[in-house]
């Protein structure tokens, strides 16, 4: 399967839009948590020492945009930007504007939720949005290629980091990391699944090492042929679907899969 630049960017856009829409509607659906008394209310979050130790002008600025009402307006604006990404023709100024708004709001989301730790999916989405934003500023062949390389290298780095950090962890190194995860009811709240993986220790050890191997070896796709690439992409897809159903982290799937078209394009060149 060969992808043109337009098709590659179109596919990345599509998955990105799905992620942003799910994320935005999820946030709107828990609107109450952003009001006074909620765990995500600004009246609570602003008490975090990260904010209280900042300059007064900085605090005045965030006090304007982070309370529930303006914040929900920004979340709604993300949804409109998604519509902009879907309908605007390639290289139109609307595209750049939408990416810029999505990038700024995504960055502010990280800042606002610092007290509990920025959401992993959102952090990763900024990598993609940032690259596409820079590309939209100057959509030449050189910049487009650089942006796609950047996305491809970032996804390789994300898997490699995950693999290496698993190797640094004793449980994973001993082959028990996956077992601890899959048998934890807090992470996978399905008793049948917990019991199944508790029972088949050999299988959990094989999966444990397959995950580490997949993550550590992922950058190989950049230097190998289409067979290796597609094997890794299929394995990655399966891994993310399993994560989505098992751990209920569906947004991981959309945002990580969004980078795959960039990999396909880079490798086919």
């Amino acid at each position, binding site marked *: 399967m060969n992808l043109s630049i337009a098709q590659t960017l179109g596919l990345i856009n599509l998955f990105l839009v799905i992620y942003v829409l*799910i994320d935005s509607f*999820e*946030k709107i*659906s*828990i609107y109450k948590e952003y009001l006074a*008394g909620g*765990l*995500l209310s600004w009246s*609570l979050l602003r*008490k*975090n020492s990260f904010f209280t130790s900042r300059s007064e002008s900085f605090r005045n600025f965030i006090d304007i945009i982070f309370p529930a009402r303006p914040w929900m307006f920004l979340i709604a604006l993300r949804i409109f930007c998604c519509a902009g990404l879907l309908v605007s023709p390639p290289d139109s100024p609307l595209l750049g504007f939408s990416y810029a708004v999505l990038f700024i709001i995504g*960055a502010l989301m*990280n*800042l606002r939720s*610092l*007290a*509990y*730790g920025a959401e*992993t999916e959102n*952090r*990763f989405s*900024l*990598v993609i949005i*940032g*690259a596409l934003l*820079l*590309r939209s*500023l100057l959509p*030449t062949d*050189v*910049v487009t290629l*650089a942006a796609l*390389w*950047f996305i491809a290298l*970032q996804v390789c*780095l*994300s898997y*490699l*980091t*995950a693999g*290496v*950090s*698993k190797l*640094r*962890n*004793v*449980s*994973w190194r001993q082959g028990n*990391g996956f077992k*601890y*995860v899959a048998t*934890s009811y*807090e992470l*996978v*709240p*399905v008793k049948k699944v917990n019991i199944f993986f508790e029972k088949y220790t050999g299988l959990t050890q094989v999966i444990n090492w397959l995950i580490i191997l997949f993550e550590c070896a992922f950058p190989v796709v950049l230097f190998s042929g289409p067979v290796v690439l597609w094997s890794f992409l299929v394995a990655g897809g399966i891994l993310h679907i399993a994560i*989505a*159903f098992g751990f*209920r982290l*569906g947004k991981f799937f959309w945002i990580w899969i969004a980078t795959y078209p960039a990999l396909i394009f880079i490798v086919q060149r």
Partner: protein
Amino acid sequence: MSIWEIIIVLTLAIWLTANICYSFLNKRMAHYTYRADIFRLLSAFQLFSRKVESFHLSYRDMLADQAVTQWEPVPLNQQWKSYHAIWFPARTVDTCVISIMDDLVRIVKKDQSGFGRKRIKERFIYHALSHFLERYPQSESCLGRQFRIQDKENNEVFISDFYKE
């Protein structure tokens, strides 16, 4: 290449290099990036690498006659549904509470005495957890609420004082 092309390519290259450094020198760099990278543009994706420790949260109230109620467990894990793979907004709050508990336990384990450190009661996470528990009903005559965190084996890891918001 035009000057603008060079600037954009350089920006991407610097961002990628910084991310590579952050990924592998995470602990050393986090000290600096915590305050400098306020938008968290640098990330180290260590998906499920840490050993999973599960904690249980519960609370009880002190009534007007000084009697205390039974410990009430706080459910933080909703029943699994297949559509949660696509749509699961409740995860946000559960994840926040679990993250707070993890941080609190980490601090408690690090420093039992609190001597020379910011007292746990003065920390944001302590305040956030007590704030979160306010959503559970309590009688008007309640003098205060107390919460505790237990590990998987039901050992008490942390117990708060009675407090009134």
